[in-house]
């Protein structure tokens, strides 16, 4: 087996979207039998590049070679037929189908091409592949019954079942616990042993160090370097990635003085979308001026917890108090009146009304104050929006600009401007910096800390440990609907153990 053969070669790939060059003359090369990491910040062009390689996008310029041969993909199917399979962040599975049925769906060889389908034959094959690559799943289980980790295994099994020579994994660990991630890395090493190629997309340095043989770093749409992982230090990779040496400023104040509890949650139970219980008896308190962070792998009930407190999702049992006032289940207006601000995870869907102008978005909560009967005071709304644009440095053409036309960072500033208006006691911030660039992250962090300094109790829900360590006075970890407090704030092992659901120290 030649491990030096070049499996994938991209030359001068350019892809433009309206107003952006997502990939700018990118050269990339991955060998047979290696795990090749594509490292870069959000928006650096990793996903675009992988979509081009997996046939979802067509490049505007440049060429793709597989094992030396020039190829041109018109659809994901073309790529699969050529042996390139992508494991998406949002899984491409039919939820109501069994695992075996999902595999048959893409099968265009041998047994799968027959008119009659026979899931039992495939089930054996799934078990065999699962044993060999440490990807255990029940082939008869329906996909909607599986955890996200298991669904990812199904996607990888699918790629192996289709006999993919090149596997692309798009931020595969985002949905995994640290232990699951470790198992995934072992699986990937097993896969490349046989001369396959794995392209591993990530923005996390430690993962890239742990799993890859070589790294190509992307920055602002360009491939800036390809280096051997063993020879690269995390610092050097980080500076390649962001173009300047950068560290998240630690903003935590030393004294950690904590006022009276402004937010109290008592024995809260909340149902998830599927009718299962997502939040199970959560107790927490946030003091005035305190930043309390909830860490955890996505999907452990954080979203439901935030939504329940904010009043947009009813709870089944328990109580929430803001500044001593009891909130009502599923009553966002009451929560807002009690002094609660909410920065939702789904910025564009829930944070703003995308097709309304900025001026109306800023006033979404407060427009009832001082109106002329049923009439809105548009002039005053425009003035306030102007003020918000100045105060929060929102980059927008003006108050009339539709919210949807703003960038992610500016939408978040707009949301903060709205939530900070009025008398704020408690701020719930759910993944407030997800997908933002470094500068915007810094601005958002600054606003959160300013709020805390003014005596607002901040509940920060985030999957980003660096962010949590930089900001939080206290750290809680959510796992399967329950919260546990981290005792020694800077003990990463303890946090990791809690995130994986095990007792610390055991």
């Amino acid at each position, binding site marked *: 087996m030649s491990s030096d053969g070049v499996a994938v070669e991209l030359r001068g790939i350019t892809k433009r979207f309206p107003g952006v060059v997502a990939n700018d003359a990118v050269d990339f090369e991955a060998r047979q039998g290696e795990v090749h990491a594509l490292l870069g910040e959000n928006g650096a062009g990793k996903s675009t590049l992988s979509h081009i390689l997996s046939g979802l996008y067509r490049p505007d310029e440049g060429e793709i070679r597989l094992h030396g041969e020039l190829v041109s993909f018109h659809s994901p199917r073309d790529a699969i037929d050529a042996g390139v399979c992508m494991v998406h962040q949002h899984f491409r599975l039919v939820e109501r189908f069994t695992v075996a049925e999902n595999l*048959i769906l893409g099968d265009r060889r041998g047994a799968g091409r027959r008119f009659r389908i026979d899931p039992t034959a495939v089930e054996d094959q799934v078990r065999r592949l699962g044993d060999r690559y440490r990807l255990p799943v029940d082939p008869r289980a329906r996909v909607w019954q599986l955890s996200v980790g298991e669904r990812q295994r199904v996607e990888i099994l699918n790629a192996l079942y289709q006999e993919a020579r090149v596997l692309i994994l798009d931020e595969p660990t985002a949905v995994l616990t640290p232990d699951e991630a470790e198992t995934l890395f072992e699986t990937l090493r097993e896969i490349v042993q046989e001369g396959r190629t794995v392209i591993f997309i990530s923005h996390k340095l430690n993962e890239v160090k742990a799993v890859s043989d070589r790294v190509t770093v992307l920055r602002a749409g360009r491939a800036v370097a390809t280096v051997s992982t063993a020879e690269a230090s995390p610092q050097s990779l980080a500076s390649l990635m962001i173009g300047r040496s950068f560290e998240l400023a630690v903003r935590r104040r030393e004294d950690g003085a904590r006022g009276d509890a402004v937010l109290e949650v008592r024995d809260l139970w909340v149902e998830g979308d599927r009718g299962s219980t997502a939040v199970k008896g959560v107790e927490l308190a946030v003091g005035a001026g305190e930043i309390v962070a909830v860490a955890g792998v996505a999907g452990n009930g954080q979203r439901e917890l935030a939504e329940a407190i904010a009043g947009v999702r009813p709870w089944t049992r328990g109580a929430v108090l803001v500044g001593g006032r009891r909130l009502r289940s599923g009553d966002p207006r009451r929560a807002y009146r009690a002094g609660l601000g909410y920065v939702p995870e789904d910025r564009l869907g829930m944070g703003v009304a995308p097709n309304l102008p900025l001026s109306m978005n800023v006033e979404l909560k407060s427009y009832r104050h001082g109106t002329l009967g049923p009439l809105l005071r548009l002039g005053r709304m425009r003035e306030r929006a102007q003020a918000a644009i100045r105060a929060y440095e929102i980059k927008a053409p003006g108050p009339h600009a539709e919210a949807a036309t703003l960038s992610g960072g500016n939408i978040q500033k707009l949301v903060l401007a709205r939530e900070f208006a009025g008398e704020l006691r408690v701020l719930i911030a759910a993944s407030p910096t997800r997908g933002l660039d470094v500068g915007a992250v810094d601005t958002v962090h600054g606003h959160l800390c300013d709020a805390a300094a003014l005596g607002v109790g901040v509940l920060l829900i985030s999957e980003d440990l660096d962010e949590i360590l930089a900001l939080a006075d206290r750290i809680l970890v959510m796992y399967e609907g329950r919260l546990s407090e981290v005792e020694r704030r800077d003990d990463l092992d303890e946090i990791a153990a809690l995130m994986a659901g095990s007792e610390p120290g055991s």
Partner: protein
Amino acid sequence: MNNSLVVALIASGVAYGTPLLFGALGELLAERSGVLNLGVEGMMLVGAVMGFWTVQRVHGSSALALVVAILVAALAGSAMAAIHAFLVITLRASQIVSGLALTIFAGAAGLSSYLGNDLNLSGLPAAYSFHAVFPNSMQSWPIVGPIVFGQNPLVYASWVCVVAVAFYLARTRPGLNLRAVGEAPGAADAMGISVVRYRYLHTLAGGAFAGVAGATITLAITPQWVSGITGGAGWIAIALVIFAFWRPELCLVGAYFFGAMQALAPELQARNINLGPTELWTNSLPYAATVIVLVVVSSRGARRRLGAPAALGVPYVREQA
């Protein structure tokens, strides 16, 4: 024994339920691909008039005329469905609006009526119609005689169709692909299954079934043509699909249940049992049940729980720039 109310009711339930069954099977195929077609009533009416017109025009053996009539009705239903398919699949128009428009366009006050009156079909008896095929001696067997052997060939054809559709969905590759297209078009597309092609084909097949359903009324049940002859059967067929949790075998049960309800009033009358005002509710029961089912399942949550295809009613746009 064969004159007992229950046996008579089941036997006519099967007969009256057959157009509902055809209509529901067709709608089921379209919905499984993700296309909701509220035009069933309109497609049935066009099938009814075209099928009836064919037997008046085609001469020769009765079998030939009837087979051609069914084919023409199927073709006419497909042609109507093609309008819907083009609007909602290619142009991505609202499926609700397009389906309703189709029923209005083709329906009792539209195309089907115009065709029927223009061709002077009203009031004529059908030149050929479907009759029971088994010998009288078999038809008089207790219980199974009238229910199983006293039916016309379209009933037996519908049974074959139920088995074929069930097998198609559960055990064949195109059936699996069809379900994937209705559940997760993005995933299906990524696997190289043409979402557009599957949706077109099954919407057209649904139209063909609806056309046959209409012809079943004019060639086997009445057998004559008047304007608006389906009398809302298309709507019942749509409700039936939901009733049956999108499963063909349950469509059969539901169709015969609704069929028996339609047969209730005439069967009682035939026995000189006068229900007086009760007749009102026996006649309106199928429609009331339809309304209730449609209201209940129009909430998203209920649809998911009942097993509606996840992408039902949602146009598919490939995420590509």
